């Protein structure tokens, strides 16, 4: 509905406002706004609740924004409201939600299976390719987390037969103390545990604390998705072997860029360079845009990241 050249109003709706991850994403959104002059902002609910996101998007629709980019807590829960948005010619760009149907595009930093396998490789390396391990997901319903660990477990079965998963996926509720308590229980129940793969940013931190307290530093390999600002102390002291993430700021910029392109009637194509590091040669699969944007951080390069 906007005339060409007019400034777009693009709002990014995140899972949860205020946490380090999405604060970093907001930096990207702000940077994008500054560079392009578009009216790009970020909002998010105070609790990671799908219903609150639905309400927020309803409000955005009522406000008549041009585009919504969204990191859903529960992709399925958002479908109806996103459909409503699309029906009003609002551009919708998703992130961490490759299953979303009612989107213009979905931006993924990488292919989830590849990322999960990558984490498994790192853990297997730390464990010397054998021993017992466990996996955490933030919520049993979190699709991305499940894709990561599912791919990881599949890879382990075929490539590392000497490794053994001790119990089904453990839910941390994205809460550090829960991850801590569950790790304690794991260590008690499976004293030979040698590896832990985390999914939510808090998982590795909770696990690391439990491992440190149990005096098992160096004996248990912990890898997972997290941020330096959250897990830095444990990277440094050695409980956590490696963390990976994609830079949420970059994801924020890309989402906004893609949204603006859609508003201006431009198409994203396979192999395109979106002008952001890690998204220089994107892969297009239907509406889903994959980058190669994961970042590995160990004790050695942690100084380079301040978020």
């Amino acid at each position, binding site marked *: 509905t906007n005339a060409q050249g007019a400034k777009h109003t693009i709002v990014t709706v995140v899972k949860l*406002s*205020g946490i380090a991850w999405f604060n970093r994403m907001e930096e990207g959104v702000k940077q994008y706004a500054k560079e392009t002059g578009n009216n790009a902002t970020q*909002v*998010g*609910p*105070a*609790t990671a*609740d*799908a*219903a609150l996101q*639905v*309400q*927020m998007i*309803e*409000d*955005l*629709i*009522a*406000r*008549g924004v041009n585009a919504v980019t969204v990191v859903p807590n*529960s992709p*399925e*829960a958002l*479908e*109806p409201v996103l459909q409503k948005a699309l029906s*009003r010619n609002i551009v919708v760009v998703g992130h961490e939600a490759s299953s979303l149907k009612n989107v213009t595009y979905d931006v993924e930093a990488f292919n989830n299976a590849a990322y999960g396998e990558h984490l498994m490789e790192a853990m297997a390396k730390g464990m010397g390719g054998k021993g017992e391990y466990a996996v955490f997901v933030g*919520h*049993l*319903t979190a699709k991305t987390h499940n894709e990561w660990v599912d791919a990881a477990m599949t890879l382990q079965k075929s490539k590392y037969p000497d490794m053994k998963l001790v119990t089904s996926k453990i839910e941390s509720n994205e809460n550090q103390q829960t991850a801590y308590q569950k790790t304690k229980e794991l260590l008690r129940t499976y004293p030979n545990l040698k590896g832990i793969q985390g999914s939510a940013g808090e998982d590795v931190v909770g696990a690391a604390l439990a491992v440190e307290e149990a005096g098992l530093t160096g004996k248990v390999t912990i890898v997972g998705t997290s941020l330096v600002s959250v897990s830095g102390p444990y990277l440094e002291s050695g409980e956590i072997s490696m963390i990976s993430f994609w830079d949420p700021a970059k994801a924020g910029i890309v989402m906004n860029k893609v949204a603006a392109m859609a508003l201006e009637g431009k198409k994203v194509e396979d192999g395109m360079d979106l002008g952001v590091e890690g998204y220089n040669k994107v892969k297009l699969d239907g509406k889903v845009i994959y980058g190669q944007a994961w970042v590995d951080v160990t004790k050695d390069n942690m100084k380079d990241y301040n978020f």
Partner: protein
Amino acid sequence: MTSGPMRVLSSPQGVVTITAFAFALILALSNPTFFSTATLVDLARNSLVTGIFAIGVVMVLASGGIDVSFTAIGAFAMYATIKLLTAYGINIPIAGIFGIGALIGAALGLINGLLVGGLGLPTLIVTLGTLSLFRGALLTFLGTVYITTVPREIITFSRTVLVRVENAAGQIVSLPFSYLVLVGVALLAAILMNGTMFGRKIYAIGGSEEAATRIGINVRRVKVMIYVISGAIAGLAGITQVTLARMANPFDLVGMELNVIAAVVLGGARITGGHGTIAGTLIGVFVITMINTSLLMAGVPSYWQKVVVGILIVLGTGLPIAIDRYVRHRERLARPLSA
């Protein structure tokens, strides 16, 4: 006697309503599109599930009990109904679906009722227990996956709208047909509470259980019935939720207990029992919903919502009491000194 405005202000509903209006005015100032049918319709739509739950809760509060398990009942009824229908590929009219939901809700409510009314256990503890129990049973026995392919009837129903308004920006705002569920439940509950013996018995029990027993009210039976009814209402809320979301999410609803109770208490019910009206409850729900969903429109950062909700809850209950004191004080001073 108390003057008009003072009287309005000295009831919680009064304060809440006025604060809500003031608040709406501020919103309207900061965003002129606020005062529109579209906003109103949106508000009504957003208060739907909370409203249905709240009606069940106010009945329990009026009887002197408290219920925190209703969200778990709603979620259980919702998920079980959809699972049943999809598993067997049953296709029944929407009224039947609501009926099943209400039945499941009533059955779970019966458990509460038997524990509270039959065994005479304290209501908070029972419903804390069943909140955990029902939720756990749902996730353990029924499943944890979202059911996105809900029966065709539900999709059709959720597409049926009651009111369709076009707003200034040319967007369509619609009130779903399921709004009638809230209207129906509210009407029935109001009639039940004010127009039937059963309703008066509820208030009597809330006033004094011992006294109710002494005048021959079968307190146990009434209590069991209250929880069955409020369970059925929670079940209806669950089905309403599924018609809004068009999918059954077993993790849904749970967590909104305190929010609903806050709305009910803002509407004038007391946790000590014996008080509470359906109309007041609906006002409370509307206000809470307005705050929770409209601050964003005014460009208020989202955490501010909590601050505002908190202040409003305290004001809504505190102001009437403070004003009442002040009025009495003035009245006393106004009397002639000689008798």
